[in-house]
Structures are given as C-alpha cells and as structure tokens.
C-alpha cells in the first residue's frame, strides 16, 4: 500500500471489508494473502493516524482564514 490521502474512516471501512472477505474464506490464496497484508498495513496506518490526529483551529475574519490561538483563562462555560 502506498501512502495516499485516505481518511481514517475510509481506511477503517476498507479494513472491515477485508476482515469480512477473509471470513467468507472462498478467495484464491494469492488474493487472501494480499488482503491480509493490506489489512495489517491499514490497521497500522489507522493507529498512526489516530496518534497524530490534531484539530486545526482557524478564525474567519474579514474574509480571511487565519490561525486561531485559544485564550487559556480558567473559567468554564458549563458544568461538563
């Protein structure tokens, strides 16, 4: 698997599809082995993606999208 721009969800869906294809058990051997390899890679990629996941926060002012720094004052808006 080459590195591409797949989202986490797309990888997860593909991984699920691979597991159920292997569970069916009627694939040619080459295909089964290839799917297993692909699945291993996908699951690693998913884990990496989760570890590296960060939100990007921007602010839209005067029609421009700029980076946003949140103030760190210590009161909260609600009880949760």
């Amino acid at each position, binding site marked *: 698997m080459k590195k591409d721009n797949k989202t986490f969800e797309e990888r*997860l869906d593909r991984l699920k599809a*691979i597991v159920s294809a292997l569970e069916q058990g009627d694939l040619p051997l080459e295909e089964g082995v290839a799917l297993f390899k692909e699945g291993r890679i996908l*699951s690693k990629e998913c884990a990496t993606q989760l570890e590296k996941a960060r939100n*990007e926060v921007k602010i839209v002012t005067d029609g421009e999208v700029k980076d946003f720094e949140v103030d760190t004052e210590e009161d909260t*808006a*609600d009880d949760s």
Partner: protein
Amino acid sequence: MKIFSVTDITRAVKDVLETEFPFIWVRGQVTNLARPASGHIYFTITDGDAGLSVVWFKGNQRAGGDGEESVNPLTGEIESGGPLELEDGMEVLVAGHMNVYPPRGVYQLVAELVQEQGVGDLKLAFEAMKRKLAEKGYFAEDRKMEIPRSPKRVAVVTAPTGAAIRDFLKIAEVRGTGAEIRIYPTLVQGDFAPGQIAQALDLVYDDNWAEVVVLIRGGGSLEDLWAFNTEQVADALFRSTIPVVCGIGHEVDFSIADYVADKRVATPSHAAQELWPRREILMQTVDELEGSLVRSFENYLNIRESQLETLQKGLSWLSPAQRIERLQASFAEEGQRLSRVADKFVTAKDTEALSLSHRLNFAFGGERIKRMEHDLSGLQGRLTRAADIFLKDKLAEFENASTSLRVLDPESPLERGYSLVTVEKSGKFLRSPEEVADGDAIRVRVKSGEVRARVTSE
C-alpha cells in the same frame, strides 16, 4: 461658575433624590439577580429601555415572615408568609426609597417590599415567539438534517473569547481523527448580537465549506441569552443549507435557536461530544479489527489447507495407473456376471422346452383317444337307464290320477244305491230336515233316473 468636588455634588444629588423620593413604587422586570452570602439580594429592574439597581436587605426580606404579619404598603392589606423567591425575568412591583451610594456614585432603590406581578415580559415574548415560529413550521422534525458523524470541516459561530469556545475546543482535542475547525466570530449578547449571529451564519452558508455548523454560547441570564430568542437568528437558522448543532447556556436553558437547530445539545462541551467519538474508543475499534483480521486470516489458511488435502486425495484417485487397475477389476467382474447370466438363460430355456413337450403329448396322444371312447360308452348306458326310469314314473303317476278321479265323481255313490235329493224351489242339495217344510217339492236322483216327490209330515 461653581466647581463642585465629587463629594459635594454626590451629597447634593443624594439630598435631592432622597428628599424627593422618600417612598416610591416601581414596576419592572428582574434581571442580573445576585444572592451573595451576606443574604442581601441585589438585582436590576428593567422595562426594556432603562434599568434601576435594587438592593433588598436581609432585614427587610424577613418582614412578613416567621408568622409575623406586615402591612402591604401598596394595598394596605395585612400579609403573612415568607419573602418572595425572586427569579430573573420575573415581573415585580418594588416598594422602597431611593438612595445614593457615594463611594461608587450610583443610585439605587432600597426595597422594603417586593411583589410578583405575573410572568415577565421576556418570558411572554419568548412564548409568543415560540408559538409564532412553530406555526411557521420552523421546529418541524421533518426538516431537521442529520448531523454528520466525525465531520472533518466544522464551522463554529460564537464569541472568539470566553468559556464557550474554550470548552468546545478542549473537548474536541481528544476526539475525532483530526478536523479543521473554523470560528466565525460574533457578539453573542447585546443589541447587535442577533444581527451579527445571523450574518455569521449566512457567511458559513455562503462559504459552502463546512459539513456542519455549531452555534454555541456559555450560560447567562435570560436577558444575556436573549439574542438566541430573536426572530432574526431563528430566520438565519431556518435558511441553513447545512446541519446546525446548537448549544446555548446551561443544561436547563432552552432558546428559540435550540428549537430551530437540527440538533440541540445542552452545552458547548456537549456539542463537541455530539460531533466526534473519543479517540481512544476509535483506537479500541482499530485494535479489535486487527484482532479479527489475524483470526479470520488464520481461519482462512486452515480452510485452504484442508481444501488442499482434499484435492491431493482427488489427484491420486485420478492417476492413470490407478485408473487401469480399477478398469481391470471392473472388467473381470463384468465377465463373471456375463457368464452367470448366460448359464441361467440356457437352463431356463431347457426347462421350458420340456414342459411344452409334456403338454403336447398329453393333448394329442393315444391316451386321450382311449379316454374319450370310454367316456362315450359311459354316457350311452346312462342315457338308456334314465329313459327307463322316466317312463315307469309317468305310468304310475297316470294310474294314481285315474283312481283319484273316480273317487271325486259325485255320481259314483249312486251306483252303490245312494241318492241325491234336491229341493225344487231352492235348487240346493238337501242336507237337513229343517231345510224343507210340509208339501215342498223335491227331486230324488238315483243311478238310472230321477223321482219327483213331496214332503209329508206324519
């Protein structure tokens, strides 16, 4: 021109105000209610255009409580019971005097009695707006859009500073798989807030970038949150082209915006929770899937292996040497079967021929002619004997019949001297003396003729 010191002018104002308004009644709506530990109650009463600070000291609150009676200065009626439980938005009548507080240069109304005046205007306005928009179909369930799961592009309409956005971002940090969050800043309180909120929402729609828009604000009084109860904001939410999540104030606060939005959440934090699953839960899903992958692959290999074994068996079965052996065995068996069948056939035909020759001989041989001659002579004897018996029987029958006939003839007794007497007038045979009277004519028949006579009675 006289120049006042701050103290002097404040004292002058105090004198005028307190002398001019020693006791007044003011009507308004409670806002900014504060109950510090001191037990005094501070609030503002407003009529929408102006506000007046009110202080309700603890001592005055107790008037009328604890079973004591007090005179209502407005009505002159005697009242009892505890003090009024104030709430933001409550419409009240406050009785008291004006007072100036020199250190801060502010004037306030010192309340001596506070009385509820029905539901506050804001609440009435809220209910009226809710009814109006409900009728326009703004809250209809069937126009609600589904909130996308784990969105990658999220617009947040809120104040760029303050607790709401901070809470939202903090919760978002540990959730999802990495999203871009764009803040569309707006005022969330005050007269300009409704217009700005609507404008920010429209900007989000126009940018056509976000998958979902989040409208949030921290907790506050009914007045603070009022922008979210305006028709302007409701209209902007109603014309939304993407799903809207609305989290205004605390758990208990409900705004018109909450009703129009596609999804109402209790607080800004809840909005983030609603949008994204926790990252560690996603991690767990990945781990579980990896486990399933390994298990299903092992299983798959086992199935392949057993399939291979089956195929190997099949292959040896199909080898040419094996096939020739199997054919030879089959050939030998067929040969034996054939010879068995032939034997059986010949024997069966033999038996059949013998039986036929027996039957032929029996049907047409000398034996049969002899038997037929014998039968014929037997039949002739039986015929002669039968004719003799028949004739004898008929003769005897005839004689019997003749004898019977003779006995039955009425005239045969006449031969032996008997006679038959007939009464002339009745023509009947005479059987008893009572049948005749004196002088009756009778006829007496004898063997050879008839005698006529008359009856006499002697």
